[in-house]
């Protein structure tokens, strides 16, 4: 009983603690592939601590919404990340939410952040908010279509059940799952503002989306936003790994040693995911913002195709 409780407390804390590390690994790998030395993988932690120590500068006409948004954004992203099974199938909150709820929570966070972008009344905030919402309008139906195709395969939209189904030996090679995997990767890239949709390392560039929206933040508020951003990346990597590569996740009722192995395996999966993401980002150029809907449209089509294949044949 106490062990279960401890595991349920460990899960959300682990998610929040590992998130900056994941960002650090992506940056480090990218730097090494570009033959730079790059900052240490713990640099994101140092950045957050540095920001936390600084005072926050608010614009004269910033309202309470502006200062409240970072807390809400981090909270919503954190709750969503906690709902994704990481190293054990039982998150403790399983019956409370399915995949649609996770998408909904991320949409809530984005809604608040876009409003904060408009709060100060600057052009950069406006352009960021406007484009972020445009990308979301294309990404959300694609995401739902992919969830639909998963639900057709697994018969449920609850994440742990999908993962357990994918893990089961009765499942052979499924083309619809592969298509859904590619679709999920595209959505993950778009939602996290990675290249080719957005460039997380630019400032003062008209193509930036997410960074433009949070331009006015500083100090502890910016630290929270950065942490939320890392957590969102971790959420998507965990989501893809638990749905498509659920091997090694501790089943319900495992002992502590099994859970220890599962945590190590989970961290290993995160490393692999981070490296693949860095590799992908290096091989592709940033797109014009109005090409993005076409890019995400591919994910929508893959979702439709996966659903269609599944409807045509039970074994595809």
């Amino acid at each position, binding site marked *: 009983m106490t062990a279960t409780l401890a595991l349920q407390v460990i899960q959300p804390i682990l998610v929040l603690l590992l998130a900056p590390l994941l960002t650090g690994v992506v940056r480090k790998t990218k730097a090494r592939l570009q033959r730079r030395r790059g900052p240490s993988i713990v640099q994101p932690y140092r950045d957050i601590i540095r920001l936390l120590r600084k005072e926050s500068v*608010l*614009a004269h006409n910033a309202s309470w919404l502006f200062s409240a948004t970072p*807390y809400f954004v981090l909270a919503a992203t*954190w709750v969503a990340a906690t709902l994704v099974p990481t190293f054990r199938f039982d998150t403790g909150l399983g019956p409370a939410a399915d995949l649609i709820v996770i998408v909904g929570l991320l949409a809530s966070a984005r809604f608040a952040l876009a*409003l904060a972008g408009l709060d100060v009344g600057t052009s950069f905030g406006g352009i960021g908010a406007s484009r972020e919402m445009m990308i979301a309008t294309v*990404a959300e139906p694609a995401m739902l279509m992919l969830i639909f195709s998963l639900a057709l395969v697994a018969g449920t*939209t609850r994440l742990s059940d999908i993962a357990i189904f994918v893990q089961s030996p009765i499942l052979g090679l499924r083309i619809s799952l592969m298509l859904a995997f590619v679709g999920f990767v595209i959505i993950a890239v778009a939602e996290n503002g990675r290249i080719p949709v957005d460039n997380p390392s630019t400032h003062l560039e008209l193509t930036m989306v997410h960074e433009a929206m949070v331009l006015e933040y500083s100090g*502890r508020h910016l*630290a929270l936003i950065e942490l939320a951003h890392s957590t969102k990346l971790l959420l998507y990597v965990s989501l893809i790994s638990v749905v498509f590569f659920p091997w090694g996740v501790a089943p319900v009722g495992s002992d502590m040693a099994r859970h220890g192995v599962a945590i190590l395996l989970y961290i290993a999966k995160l490393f692999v995911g981070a490296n693949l993401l860095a590799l992908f980002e290096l091989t592709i150029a940033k797109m014009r913002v109005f090409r993005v809907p076409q890019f995400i449209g591919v994910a929508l089509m893959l979702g439709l195709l996966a659903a269609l294949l599944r*409807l045509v044949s039970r074994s595809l």
Partner: protein
Amino acid sequence: MLVGNVLLCVAALIGVSCFAVWACRRPWANSAIYGASAVFCAVALAGAIAALVGGAASTLTLPLGLPWIGMHFRIDALAAVFLCVVNLGGAAAGVFALGYGRHEHAPQRVLPFFPAFLAAMNLVVVADDAFAFLLSWEFMSLTSWALVVSHDRSAETLRAGLIYIVMASFGTLSLLLAFGILAGPDGHYAFSWMRARGPNPNETMIAMFLVLFGAGSKAGIFPLHAWLPLAHPAAPSQVSALMSGVMTKVAVYAFVRIVFDLLGPIDWRLGMVVIGVGAVTALLGVLYALMQHDLKRLLAYHTVENIGIIFVGLGLALAFRANGLTAAAALAVTAALFHVFNHSLFKSLLFFGAGAVQAATGERDMDRLGGLMHTMPRTAVTFLIGAAAISALPPLNGFASEWLTFQAAFLSPSFPQWGLRLLTPASAAILALSAALAAACFVKAFGVTFLGRARSEAVNLARETDKASQFAMFALAGACGVAGVFPGFFTNLLGPVAQFLTAARIPAQAIAAPWSPLLPVAASHNSYSGFVIAGCLIVATAVVAFAIRLVANGASRRGAAWDCGYPDASAMTQYTAGSFAQPIRRVFATIAFRAREMVFMPAPGDTAPAEFKATLHDPAWDLLYTPVGKAVGFLADSLNRFQFLTIRRYLNLVFLTLVFLLTVLALWP
């Protein structure tokens, strides 16, 4: 006698209306009329809740109307649900108008019609024969029309009134014909008789399309929505809230009552038609809304979107029922009716907010507002809650009902027909798209109106709205929260309705333990607990805030906005409604509305100003209304010639007509 109680409230409302004719110019008239309306609506609401919980149908026949028929009234579970929606909205509008109504320039043009409008909507829902139904329906149309044209005499309002009355007449005509078909050759008008008769498949199909036109034109399905975004904003805001939040629901009631209850079994293809119409309406409604910069018109177009979502749910229910999948049909109908209730809450709330803004600033154009968060903080909070709810964000109520609709769509693999199996996922994707577009639209509506810097002096002079209006808005915002956190309580109440319409109901939800999740289908593992999600969000926010207070530097300093080192001098350089929607206009409206942007740059050295022009085409007007209007005009012009003939020609025409009719009579078999 529950129906008697409701009818007494209706009589009282009509009495208030007559009293208002006499009293409307007195200084106390505003409080007295709106207060009395709210009280009688609240009493009727209590009666409706009693009917919903009690379960037994209650009927009454009054010796009014046509002498050999009388008027039949009946409250069953379905009517009780819609009575709740009508009277909750009516009571809220009455309370809101206690304060807001004082801004009215010509109260004598609004006060007498307001209680009459409420009475009419109640009558439509309790009517149990075609005569009473159509009479109340027409009464509802006319009182709301009077309220639409009451506000002022601007050309725009008059045009809205004209289009509304034409469309309302068209709708009533369609319903009249539908009832004619249902009544059959013997012409029995009581609903109980129509239910027992059961029309043949062809009659069913024609009647179903007539109802789709008749009820759909009042509800605002595409392309019959054209009057709605003109008429709803033209009325005073408490009436806009009623028309958008409640009257469209009465139209949904008419559709459900006739199609689900009176028509009997319906072919699955007709269900497919309803799903398709709903999906197109949802998508185009929200796209129209995104293109608006008038706050109230934007809200009116969102009504079109939400009606689309409701019709997708109803269409799914029809299709499931036609295939005998009663559990799935019950889920779809529960989702649709829950969305009916939720939409009436947040749409009324949003219209109240827009009304408060209009009263405080005299502006409805978002591009002349901005920064109202500072001058009207309470209105801003309630509008924000309504905006989040309508954008289907958890843990509010809009998300709960859309989640249920998605769960119904996920059951589509059980359809035996290929068409439905393919259409349903596509319509679910369209629903997701319209939810995402709605979120974008409400970021725009709230962001441009309430956030940023003031774009006109009127905003700086604005004052927070009065206490009664605030109370109404906070009550509705609270209701949005409660319905989102405890959806199981409301789906349980909808159980008898689902049972009545689809012969099944979704599993009864355990409401004793508030954290227990909502389980839409017994066999499925999908579940959602608004309570747990809301709790987690609150706990997580508290933990984050506590941790920050513990470790971080808590100092804040106010300074000029940074804006990458280029602070804007003028508030007019902020993002406006048009510029916010520009990327979406470019991505989606290029096809849907043939949106084009043109930039005229003068030659180098030329001192002429550069110009930017964006054009949009409304497909409903381009392809339907303008051609029809032209055809009617042409026909009227051609017939005009007959007005100026000599007496000889008229006599000739009379003679020829007589010969023609006699020939027809002679040849008639």
